[in-house]
């Protein structure tokens, strides 16, 4: 059996307790082990990608129990890509957290970060619906700790909201899984797909309830419109590097939708045909609209970036909700872009907030303002989907994929209008942050200490001037976006193959259930 598949889960699961128990008082050692673990994870992810590249589906049976009875981990093109995306993002975030000193502002940052990585990677790799729930809980319980990292009254209260909202989501997840189990008698995704397809049409009322409940759960994670309320307050009040890593958490919801609603409740399954896409598309359009309006209306930088995360989730879910191979190609490309762009923007937001506070009001010029302004400009271009960077290609792909849909005019109108609104919102924020500060006639400079993120800002022992290391991951994320643009051709070939694999689930099912041929 191929043991590489479990390595991305085992490694952080071993490193995190080691950090807590053995080196909890050695900050430098913690940093070394944390970075080493993330680098090793990147190498493992590359190995996994090279294994999945040719379309083989790897199956890892935990405890050597065959598939419908034991838990399996499944590696296909989509999982391999998401794992690599997560580890690349984790490398940038952990370097930034070290460079900016964020990891010293509270305890156990690195251990919690490793646990969160374990949860996210496990969620991408698992082939069992209940195991997906368990990995969701692992990543959530670590994210609760990361979310309130550094403390402060506002952050703690936002943390309570975040935890309560996600606990509700977990309860709903269990209800959905229970419903599915009571109808099908299995929770293995491949086995579910077989059973659902075999079910007689008159017995499917409960199954539909289960499918919609499950969609609601993933919509909570992905911050789709009526269920997005947790995101702005949580992300804006979380430490910004943590929020940058949370960019992958919303993608976990999107991934789960893409996985389960192509594999189990696929487009050709009569039971749930039209059930999901018809509801998800309007919700995704509204998500995009609300996200971009939020960008325009935000009065704080953190909230602005949080709303831009919602907007990019909206675009992504438009592509997913079309449920065609072409749209899935666009969706997978947009996942990569959106993760890097959102994370880049959160890190730039942290650079700004560290220097002048998060309020969108004129203040005196900040140190290194030119570099930060350039980075903000690049991030804004990427998020708004303007030509030079990959956001443009992503949005173009989504719009091109929607041409076959009946809703094509609505989709195009919403995407184009919200792009304009996003550009205006970002331009407004950028000019207030970086240009108005040079306008002396405006008002006597109020000191940048009125930061209302409520955190105890920079304890005495923290490194005061942000060292150059903090800029490295930010530029690396920008370079990743540039690479995604330049190498759009090879990436597109991979995402096309991924979409083809997703929409031909027979291979997945046969490999997992070990039924040779069909």
């Amino acid at each position, binding site marked *: 059996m191929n043991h590489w598949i479990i390595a991305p889960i085992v490694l952080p699961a071993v490193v995190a307790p080691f950090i807590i128990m053995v080196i909890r008082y050695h900050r430098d050692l913690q940093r070394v082990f944390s970075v080493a673990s993330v680098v090793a994870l990147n190498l493992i992810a590359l190995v996994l990608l090279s294994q999945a590249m040719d379309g083989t589906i790897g199956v890892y049976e935990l405890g050597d129990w065959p598939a419908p009875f034991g838990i399996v981990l499944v590696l296909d093109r989509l999982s391999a890509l998401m794992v690599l995306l997560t580890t690349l993002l984790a490398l940038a975030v952990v370097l930034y957290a070290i460079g900016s000193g964020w990891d010293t502002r509270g305890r156990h940052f690195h251990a919690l970060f490793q646990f969160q990585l374990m949860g996210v990677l496990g969620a991408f790799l698992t082939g069992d619906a209940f195991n997906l729930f368990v990995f969701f809980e692992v990543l959530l*319980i670590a994210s609760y700790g990361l979310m309130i990292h550094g403390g402060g009254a506002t952050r703690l209260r936002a943390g*309570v909201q975040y935890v309560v909202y996600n606990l509700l989501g977990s309860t709903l997840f269990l209800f959905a899984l229970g419903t599915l189990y009571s109808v099908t008698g299995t929770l293995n995704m491949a086995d579910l797909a077989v059973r659902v397809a075999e079910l007689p049409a008159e017995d499917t009322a409960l199954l539909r309830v289960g499918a919609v409940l499950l969609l609601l759960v993933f919509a909570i994670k992905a911050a789709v419109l009526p269920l997005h309320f947790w995101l702005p307050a949580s992300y804006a009040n979380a430490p910004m590097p943590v929020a940058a890593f949370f960019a992958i958490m919303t993608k976990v919801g999107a991934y789960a939708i893409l996985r389960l609603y192509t594999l189990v409740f696929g487009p050709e399954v009569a039971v749930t045909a039209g059930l999901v896409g018809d509801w998800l598309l309007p919700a995704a359009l509204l998500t995009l609209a609300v996200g971009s309006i939020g960008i325009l209306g935000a009065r704080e930088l953190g909230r602005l970036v949080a709303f831009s995360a919602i907007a990019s989730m909206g675009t992504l879910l438009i592509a997913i909700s079309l449920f065609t191979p072409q749209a899935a190609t666009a969706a997978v490309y947009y996942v990569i872009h959106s993760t890097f762009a959102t994370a880049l923007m959160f890190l730039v937001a942290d650079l700004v907030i560290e220097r002048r506070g998060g309020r969108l009001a004129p203040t005196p010029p900040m140190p290194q303002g030119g570099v930060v302004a350039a980075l903000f400009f690049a991030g804004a271009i990427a998020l708004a989907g303007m030509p030079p960077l990959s956001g443009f290609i992503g949005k173009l792909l989504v719009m091109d994929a929607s041409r076959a849909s009946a809703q094509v005019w609505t989709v195009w109108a919403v995407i184009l209008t919200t792009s304009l609104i996003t550009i205006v919102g970002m331009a407004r924020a950028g000019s207030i942050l970086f240009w108005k500060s040079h306008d002396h006639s405006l008002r006597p400079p109020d000191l940048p200490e009125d930061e209302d993120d409520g955190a105890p800002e920079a304890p005495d022992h923290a490194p005061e001037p942000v060292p150059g290391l903090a800029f490295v991951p930010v530029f690396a994320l920008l370079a990743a976006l540039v690479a995604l643009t330049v190498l759009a051709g090879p990436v597109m070939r991979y995402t096309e193959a991924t979409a083809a694999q997703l929409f031909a689930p027979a291979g997945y099912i046969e490999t997992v259930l070990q039924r040779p041929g069909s």
Partner: protein
Amino acid sequence: MEILLASAVGILTASGIYLILRQRSFPVIIGLSLLSYAVNLFLFATGRLALNQPPILNKYAEVAYTDPLPQALVLTAIVISFGMTAVVVMIALSAYLAARNDRIDMTGETGEDA
């Protein structure tokens, strides 16, 4: 039997949701606990209700058995919800100690939500 269990799940869920919509963190946490009890009972029932039957197959005799998998699922769910409740109590407590009140809503900051 079925009606008893179904109404228990229903009442627990309804009370849980009512409490979650309160504005103080203590009722919200109680509501979350009630909801997790409801979901545990619900999961338990997904393997069909069977009284006085073992959760194992007996290959020497033709006896009825109850589905063991929901029991394993419930066990996992109980452990997770227990841990989660502990975490939310700690976070709510530190939020209360930091702000000197236990209101759950964020007046001011979240006002401009869509």
